[in-house]
């Protein structure tokens, strides 16, 4: 680990100011950052600890939604009775991830900003990783690619976004509240994460020093009717090979509205809007789900090691739709 400075920010403005410095990074639960610093993958010169910020509450919003402080731990969100009752997909997605020990440390904001598990990214002795060393190439392409993405990839990066929680949030139309040097702003979650394109090192739309303060769950008619299915290599404590978060509103036996998000297969939490378009206005049936799921992998670019994901993610999605209708 490289030497670094440490300060604990007293409030959001101070955090933004300190976090804007070159080489500064925010420290929340530390479950990603401390790990990657020890591996020498991340080399911040300054850590700005957010632990003193008052972002630890889950509040009701005026329109009947929830506003989750960025420092609320993953388990606290998962087990909040309002989340369990009104946003089941989020409850399920969080509990499908990590372990109780990690979820008790990891925060809402930190979960969204966790880094990829690509083994080439995590091994600093691998020279070629565009995320770690911009412009150095991508060792994953042509290598061990079982865990990698088939959607949202570029010739420069195929790393999967590992979060389960973010996939659940995406199916709930979550909004991300951000505080920065120029004041607060709000982004739809889908706009927070970026596909790698030509610049895999730029992972989010956050500007230097910008801080996630809250995640807002709007009140929607589909949220309560939501579900998460995760498929992985062992029964627990493994990242998704494929996952699907689905939320649907039924009206008179037809699908009035749908939100579909996929995990484990894409370079960012993946909104499958083409699937949604196929589902809406139709009566649910297995045939419909099969047809819709095939749209999820339009344009998929598998590697030698993850070709199976093209089929797996469709089946995962079909399962999720089947179960949410049950």
């Amino acid at each position, binding site marked *: *680990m*490289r*030497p670094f400075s440490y300060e604990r920010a007293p409030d959001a403005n101070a955090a933004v100011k300190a976090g804007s410095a070159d080489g500064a990074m925010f420290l929340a639960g530390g479950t990603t950052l401390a790990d990657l610093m020890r591996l*020498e993958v991340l080399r911040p010169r300054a850590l700005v600890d957010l632990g003193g910020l008052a972002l630890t509450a889950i509040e009701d919003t005026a329109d009947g939604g929830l506003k989750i402080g960025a420092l609320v731990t993953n388990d606290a969100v998962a087990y909040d009775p309002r989340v369990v009752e009104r946003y089941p997909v989020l409850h399920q997605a969080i509990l499908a991830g990590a372990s109780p020990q990690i979820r008790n440390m990891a925060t809402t904001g930190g979960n969204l900003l966790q880094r990829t*598990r690509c*083994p*080439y990214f*995590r*091994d600093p*002795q*691998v*020279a070629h990783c565009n995320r770690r060393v911009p412009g150095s190439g991508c*060792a994953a392409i*042509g*290598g*061990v690619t*079982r*865990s990698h993405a088939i959607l949202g990839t570029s010739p420069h990066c195929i790393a999967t976004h590992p979060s389960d929680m973010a996939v659940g949030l995406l199916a709930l139309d979550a909004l991300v509240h951000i505080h920065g040097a120029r004041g607060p702003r709000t982004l739809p979650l889908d706009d927070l994460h970026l596909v790698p394109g030509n610049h895999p090192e730029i992972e989010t739309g956050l500007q230097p020093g910008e801080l996630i303060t809250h995640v807002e769950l709007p009140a929607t008619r589909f949220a309560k009717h939501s579900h998460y299915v995760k*498929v992985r*290599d*062992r*029964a*627990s*404590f*493994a*990242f998704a*090979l494929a996952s699907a978060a689905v939320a649907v509103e039924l009206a008179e036996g037809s699908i009035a509205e749908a939100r579909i998000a996929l995990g484990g297969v894409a370079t960012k939490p993946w909104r499958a809007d083409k699937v949604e378009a196929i589902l809406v206005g139709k009566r649910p049936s297995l045939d419909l789900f*099969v047809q819709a799921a095939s749209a999820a992998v339009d344009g998929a670019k598998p590697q030698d090691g993850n070709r*199976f994901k093209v*089929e*797996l993610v469709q*089946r*995962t999605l*079909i*399962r999720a739709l089947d179960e949410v209708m049950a």
Partner: protein
Amino acid sequence: MSESNVGKPLDRIDARRKVTGTATYAAEVAVANVAYAVVVGSAVACGELEAIDTTAARKAPGVFAVLTHENAPKLPTANDKSGHPDFKILQVLQDAKIFYADQPIAVVVADSLERAQHAALLVQPTFHAAQITSCQLAKGGEEYKPAHAGNRGPTDTSRGDFDAAFARAPIKIDATYTTPVENHNPMEMHSTIAVWQGNDHLTLYDSTQGIFNVRERIASMFNLPKENVRVINHFVGGGFGSKGSPWSHVGLAALAAKVVGRPVKLVVSRIQMQSLVGHRPTTIQHVALGCDAAGKLHAIRHDVTSETSRFDEFVEVAAVHTRMLYACPNVVTTHRLVRLDVPTPTFTRAPGASSGSYALESAMDELAYAAKIDPLQLRIANHATFDAQENKPYSSKSLLECYRRGAEAFGWVRRAKAPRQMRDGRWLVGYGMATATYPARQRPASAIARLRPDGSVLVQAGTQDLGTGTYTIMTQIAADMIGVPYERVTFELGDTTFPETPLSAGSFTAASTGSAVKMAGLALRDTLVALAVADPRSPLHGVPPLALAAADGALFVRERPQTREPLHAILARTGKPELTASYSSKENQFADDYSMHSFGAAFAEVRVDEELGVVRLARFTGAYAAGKILNPKTARSQYIGGIVWGAGMALTEAGVRDARSSRIMTRDLADYHVPVNADIPNLDVIMVDEVDPYVNEVGAKGIGEIGTCGAAAAIANAVYHATGRRVRDLPITLDKLLGDSRA
């Protein structure tokens, strides 16, 4: 002996110390003035170091030294492994050659771990990197024939006429099975603290399965008489074979301590453990079986190809059990090696027996379906009452009873004959079974028993407790033999100043060290008896020795228990501070006359979510006969630990290398998938009673590894029964079951 302790499910003596954190493992020993060493590994897998710039590292705060091949002391005998084929060729900074990724190329020593880790990042190597030839075992690779099948007999065997018998057999299976790299990943990482006393005496606190191996290897490396090296190791957090012989880090710690002139602690990181401490090698196994319509085997062929490193040799002896497991007149087995740009593989829980049983027992399952015979009946029809390879009877064999008891407990009778016939909602259900076997060996071992003035007993032997319960069972044996209460016996281990014992491996600790402890205890009791009956001051004076018994810390006349004398009174009259008795047991004296093995039967139920390819182990029953069970509680833990290894082998575990660089890409426990609790159902273990008068003095065959044998095959066979899909490549991950069609 009165068996008031042996055979009882006693709690581990060290349980409280372990759960309260007071059991001191090697890296936790408080050593004054200790410095911290960190190993720097090679980024490339092949070639040479061109240069290694340590300027920045040496200038970093707190750094005492940076050792590289350019400045490390020369150790001309570092890789002299004469007489020890199981010792490994080590990389202790003696030259610039690179043979595998992560190979040690420098050691940084500093005043804190963090400073050493930081400085390690400042070491700047440059390589003449050569393109690796291959790190993937493949058919048609450049095989060679090793001189022996490791320490397990000839490389190849042939009896009868396989070719003719196979050609004639009406029912045949001819299939190839592959198994991946498995990494041991014990909870406790390998660690060493090296403390020099002057120039020629060295103490090592080392996490090892064999303190005497470490002593011998390190003494030879530094050209010291072995008495000058003391190795201490009171607790080990698992080894599974990876701590069987010393790896490079032990030598590096001693080397670094010599250079910096103070004690040095070196802990191998979890990531480095995937490369620096051995692994189970990949295998390609060809199995051909031929039987008649009744299922009687007429031909068995098992050809094993496994990987080894460019610079050293390890043979995964996967076909050796095939030589004797089933009654069959025509049997061929072979072992071949392919050199790859990888670190040297090593013994991994049930070496050969687990990987080999996956192939053989999968093929037996395939043969059962081909012959339309129940897989269990096929095994019973081919039960061997005689070891045809060794031409010896078995010292004991209760396999048929294992089949019967296991099948009954599991409910094998409920199995549908054909695949894909059992279902529970979305889940396809399958049953599978396999035979398990592991050799029962005994190695020379010594122990000393000491009676102390307060009537307590101290027993010492230099063995190790890997977490298996060695402390506990040795205490049980000693208490019963000497006739003192269990609470009055202390057993000490893990110190080369104690009597010499073999390493803790090969499932032979109970057999070897247990026999020595038993016989030392008996010798102590005999000494006490002789003193008492010869002494007019003893109430036992003149009693024939055979009329005496010992219990509760006293000798007494068996027919008149009130005529007794406490052991401490006998000692007191001698005027000595203690009475001692030692014993050195030999290798098994009946080994020339009998073939000695444990046997068992493994039964698995899996559930397969076919649409998603997901397999879950739902139930497992293992019935094993392994001679005397010294402690059913610690024994059950050994068995279920072994079965969990089998479950990992079958379903989740694989060390994966990048084919271009030979770097291992499963570098931590998030990517290398050992089963987690949620993967493991309740495991039903049946210990079949077995009395073996020949196997060794304590009658125990050893149980550390047989649980792993057969388990992977039983699970793989259950997957076939559930799905009708035969996966011949472990682990059975979901992509191998997805197929093309949706259910």
